[in-house]
């Protein structure tokens, strides 16, 4: 044991991708080196830019240490979008590889390809899908229930920074060492020491553990917020649908994340402590991992879908200028889905050899979920019925979702039938199916929600033109990219295939490649949309805060909202409270008297705990035991020290609240009420000319 060995653990020069690319300059290694270079350069550029602009203090005091749920929500989304860029580029690279590699080794070597699909899946699930939705829920839910913040603002910050820490580890794996090749589900025994001795599976274990810890705490936070922090009169059956789906998602997070943490920690025990939970020998059994993993994995599917269902409920109602059809049905359907999601996990491994009776039970349970899901789709259709539908970007994505999602539902029922699952399990058919659920489900939902709530968060609208361009890329792009995968999967092409052997597949892989490029163009148009919208923000400002003539409490304050959200906590007397306030002339009124408002002070503890745990887990990956101990001690010490701090809240005096509120009311009084057909014009200052 030399000093260097103790200091650096398993880390050597060879661990750097650049060294590998230099020594062995194949195309595959050079692509790896370039990706590592982009990661390093990107980080360096970002740091340099912030330093040159002198924005560190601003960033630290206003954003990174903030405990404001709105800012934490926005940070979640920014983080997720950065991760999305990487994971989508990886997807394009994989499709390019398959398009080239027909009886031909193609661009990326098998081992590199395996890292691509493993990081793509892990990132998309844990570091794109979940943080995007967690960001939306963080921003919107407290506003919808008339609360000043989530129940535990400090824990909210810890959740964020644990998740970001996982993302940092994913990015580090681009530069130092190799990531796991075992897919996003990391099945042992393949990921056991006997078969994969390197750092890859350890990267996967610890990055996912950080994310799952963060998500579990988020779940607790959101559930308690909905239970305890609703404004007076906000009874259960008056909750907006998005809040209902947030609550169900939170419950799923609380119960679904622990099995994952247990599974990954047991796998870690195998790898680090020589135990035999999932090894081939000495009584280990892979089935236990698979069960634990999907006990998490299936509810996870609904963690990724339910909030998006909530978004669609809000968007379709607002842009149909109409009350949501079948509110009670939608609430029941949401709860039923949440409960059933825990009863179907076995359908992920029908092919493991259990009896026909067991398979039938789980097959039927799976099909049952189709009923409430179908009910939801029909509820949105009947919401448009007798309405006045405006085809905004949000609404276009919602309609595309409804049409595309039912196709995925059809293939889902096929996969839920065990004999059919035997045929297409583990093939590209399965890959096509879950992308068919997650792209229209989660991603379109996030885009719809982003477009819908963006004016609330930043005070100006997004460019409609670029929204439509994005739509034209995302929707046909999806069909081109994934319909061919159904065909290839039905032809028996296994998923995770790096090289193909049948030239007849060529038209399909090329179509899929074009689709993947279109999806990348879709992402690019969202960036352009943001840039264009920021440039023309002076013509799209909506300071009054209600640009879409919408219905929930989140539209009842200025855009962007004050940090305490509500100058006065609203009294709720029925569903769609803000809509009825507008109708009954109760909106935009000064309060009788204003009170002092307490808000949490900023705290660096969340950042420190998150980064400490990241250091700890990175130390575990590289066997730098000192770093692991230091990181953990540091996080624990920070948590303990913070618990002794008493001065953690700050008071905003009533006079200031009143002044701000009155200023906003003056803006409102000066604004012109806008009828719906003019809402995309510069005249829209966020004051709607409402109709009964």
């Amino acid at each position: 044991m030399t000093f260097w060995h103790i200091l650096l653990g398993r880390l050597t020069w060879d661990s750097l991708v650049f060294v590998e690319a230099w020594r062995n300059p194949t195309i595959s290694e050079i692509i790896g080196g370039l990706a590592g270079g982009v990661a390093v350069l990107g980080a360096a550029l970002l740091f340099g830019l912030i330093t040159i602009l002198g924005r560190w203090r601003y960033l630290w005091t206003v954003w990174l240490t903030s405990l404001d749920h709105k800012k934490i929500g926005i940070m979640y989304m920014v983080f997720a979008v950065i991760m999305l860029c990487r994971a989508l580029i990886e997807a394009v690279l994989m499709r390019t590889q398959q398009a080239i590699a027909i009886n031909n080794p193609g661009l990326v070597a098998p081992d590199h390809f395996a890292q691509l699909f493993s990081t793509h899946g892990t990132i998309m699930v844990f570091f794109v899908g979940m943080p995007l939705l967690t960001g939306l829920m963080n921003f919107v839910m407290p506003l919808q229930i008339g609360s000043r913040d989530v129940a535990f603002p400090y824990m909210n910050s810890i959740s964020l920074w644990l998740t970001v820490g996982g993302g940092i580890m994913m990015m580090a794996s681009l530069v130092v060492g190799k990531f796991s090749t075992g897919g996003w589900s990391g099945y042992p025994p393949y990921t056991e020491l006997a078969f994969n001795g390197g750092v890859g599976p350890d990267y996967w274990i610890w990055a996912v553990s950080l994310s799952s810890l963060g998500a579990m705490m988020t779940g607790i936070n959101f559930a308690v917020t909905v239970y305890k922090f609703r404004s007076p009169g906000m009874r259960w059956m008056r909750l907006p649908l998005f809040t209902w789906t947030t609550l169900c998602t939170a419950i799923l997070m609380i119960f679904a994340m622990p099995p994952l943490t247990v599974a990954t920690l047991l796998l870690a025990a195998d790898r680090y402590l020589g135990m035999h939970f999932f090894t081939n020998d000495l009584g280990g059994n892979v089935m236990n991992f698979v069960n634990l993993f999907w006990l998490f994995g299936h509810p996870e599917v609904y963690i990724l879908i339910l909030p998006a269902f909530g978004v669609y409920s809000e968007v379709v109602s607002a842009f149909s200028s109409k009350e949501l059809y079948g509110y009670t049905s939608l609430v029941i359907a949401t709860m039923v889905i949440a409960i059933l999601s825990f009863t179907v996990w076995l359908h992920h491994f029908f092919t493991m050899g259990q009896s026909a009776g067991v398979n039938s039970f789980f097959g039927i349970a799976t099909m049952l979920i189709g009923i409430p899901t179908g009910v939801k789709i029909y509820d949105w259709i009947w919401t448009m019925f007798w309405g006045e539908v405006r085809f905004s970007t949000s609404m276009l994505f919602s309609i595309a979702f409804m049409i595309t999602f039912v196709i995925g539902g059809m293939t889902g029922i096929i996969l839920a039938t065990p004999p059919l699952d035997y045929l297409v399990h583990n093939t590209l058919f399965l890959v096509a199916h879950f992308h068919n659920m997650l792209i229209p489900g989660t991603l379109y939902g996030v885009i719809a929600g982003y477009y819908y709530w963006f004016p609330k968060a930043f005070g100006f609208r997004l460019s409609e033109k670029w929204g439509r361009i994005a739509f034209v890329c995302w929707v046909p792009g999806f069909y081109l990219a994934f319909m061919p995968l159904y065909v290839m999967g039905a032809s028996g092409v296994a998923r995770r295939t790096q090289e193909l052997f049948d030239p007849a597949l060529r038209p399909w892989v090329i179509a899929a490649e074009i689709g993947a490029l279109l999806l990348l163009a879709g992402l690019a148009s969202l960036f352009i949309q943001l840039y264009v919208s920021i440039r023309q923000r002076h013509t799209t400002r909506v300071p009054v805060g209600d640009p879409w003539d919408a219905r929930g409490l989140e539209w009842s304050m200025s855009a962007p909202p004050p940090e305490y959200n509500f100058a006065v906590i609203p009294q709720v007397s029925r569903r769609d409270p803000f809509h009825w306030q507008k109708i009954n002339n109760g909106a935009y009124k000064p309060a009788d008297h204003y009170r002092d408002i307490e808000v949490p002070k900023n705290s660096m503890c969340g950042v420190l705990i998150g980064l400490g745990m990241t250091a700890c887990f990175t130390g575990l990956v590289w066997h730098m035991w000192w770093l692991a101990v230091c990181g953990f001690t540091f996080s624990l010490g920070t948590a303990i020290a913070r618990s002794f701090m008493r001065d953690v809240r700050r008071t905003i005096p009533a006079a200031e609240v009143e002044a701000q509120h009155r200023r906003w009311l003056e803006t409102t009084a000066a604004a012109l009420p806008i009828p719906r057909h003019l809402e995309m014009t510069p005249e829209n200052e966020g004051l709607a000319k409402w109709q009964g």
Partner: protein
Amino acid sequence: MSKTSTGLITRAVGSPIRRLRKGVTMGLTVMAAGLLSGCSVLSRGFLGAAGPVAAAERHEFYLVGAVMLLVIGPVLLLTPLIAWHYRLANTKSAFRPQWGFSWILEGLIWIPPTIIVIVLAVFLVDDTVRLDPYRPLSPGLSPLQVQAVSLDWKWLFIYPDQHIASVNQLILPAGRPVHVSLTSGTVMQSLLMPQLAGQILAMAGMTTQLNFAISQPGTYWGENAQYNGAGFDKQKFQVLGVNPVDFNRWVASSRQTPRLLDDAAYRTLSRESVLSQPVTFGSVEPGLFAKIVHQAIRPGYLRQHEDANSHG
């Protein structure tokens, strides 16, 4: 009336339009032809079923697909129709912003899907039991026994009654049921022969089972569908369905092969490798499969990884 007349006008005016239409028709025809020829790959999969199990599963696929079309059809039609009809610009459509409930619609939304799921559930139970991979195909006929061992990155097939074995080639008599016992000599893998039967996983220390048959002599294919490392794509094999006479001839000639599959040969075979050619073993040590299942033979991969560690 007015519609017909505009139609006539278009036709009378439009030689360029007619040409355009012709072009579009031709383009569509070419595209359809391309798509159809591209669809020929589907015959590699279960749609080109070549055995009773895959054929029954294909039948169920069509059935479930047809039932599901009934469910999704209305959504595919209603969503764009209603959205377009009730667009803001259409001032003729009714507007009832406070309407949000109807018992009739609730019934339509909840009851028919429930009935469809009940119908599908009945099919599902029936088919899952009937097509259970563990269930012997025809109890009267004694099936051909095959023991399959998944290795990195190849398939070993032992014919216990014939005392021979082959790697990456499965030769079977057409028309006779086959019973496969599976285990893995390495990580978890999945045996998929798309035209013949659905897949089943192979796991170390355990045995799973698969029953199927080939209807007609012919050349089919199989693969591992569960990712297991760098040679995963190449872990494919031929399934040759031959008539029973040819099968017996093949067995007899295989027995002439001097290669013996014993512990030592298995240890070499189970090391990570991709084989360029199928291999046949003329004799197999009795009880080898049971030894593999009970992990009584030290698999090759362990030694290989220890070697890699000591070098690195």
